[in-house]
């Protein structure tokens, strides 16, 4: 079982990395590129035996308290058996 967590900057937050990547893609000739958002991907391996619902609830808490900063970031959590 593992958890996949994707953390992205909130839309209202300045994202200079995303802007720079967007500019570079356009510069390289890639057409049709809109806004780019650069975030983080965290993969957590879960030890066997944990109840998936339990693990998911605890990971949501960890995402809110530590893995993401709710002031500036959104997160998506997926637990895969």
């Amino acid at each position, binding site marked *: 079982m593992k958890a996949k967590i994707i953390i992205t*900057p909130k839309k209202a*937050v*300045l994202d*200079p*990395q995303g802007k720079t990547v967007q500019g570079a893609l356009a510069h390289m000739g890639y057409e049709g590129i809109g806004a780019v958002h650069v975030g983080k991907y965290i993969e957590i391996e879960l030890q066997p035996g944990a109840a998936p619902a339990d693990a998911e609830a605890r990971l949501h808490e960890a995402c809110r308290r*530590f*893995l993401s*900063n709710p*002031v*500036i970031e959104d997160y998506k959590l997926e637990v895969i058996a």
Partner: protein
Amino acid sequence: MQFAVLQFPASNCDQDCVHAVRVAGHSASLVWHKETTLGGADAVIVPGGFSYGDYLRCGAIARFSPVMQAVKAFAEAGGLVLGICNGFQILCEAGLLPGALIRNRDLQFHCEQVFLRTANPATPFTSRIPAGRILRIPIAHGEGCYFADDATLSRLQARGQVLWQYADARGEVTEAANPNGSLLNIAGIANEAFNVAGLMPHPDRASEDVLGSTDGRWIFESMVAALEDRRRAVA
């Protein structure tokens, strides 16, 4: 007055802060991040650096260290806490100050002198700054762009919690004087109770003539004056 200067793995301005406090005529001691008490200090400085490598986000790991639990209790009891640079980031992550510090808008690390306008001179961190004096203090950071949502920004302004703003040499708060994209040119803020403050510029690096500026000393002196006032009030 006795200052506690926190020391995390990869703090790198801890000794600077101790030195700055001592040259100003006060005492300071280092408190290791695993400590659970602050040794009876009168005030706390959370210094600059790259605590715990700044992995995940700046200050995100440091906020859970044992010593930060002591700092939270100290702050909740009204103790004076000043966060400088990484220390500011840690205090925001810990929820002791509102908002967050994100990557500079130009993605570059800025190491340069800036000018600061004191937006609220009547606080424990600013009272000794001569009226109208524009501070010249260096910055050294890659993630110093202050962000908070609109409601938080309005509250900060309405309550006078914005302490310092990036300005030009004449004290004009302009876009050109903003080194990192901080909203409202915010360089430093205080909490609602005005006993916790943080700023990205380094007063510790502007506290002796040999460093080119002594303007940072006014901030430490303001804290000392506030502590002395409290002692007199109790006595």
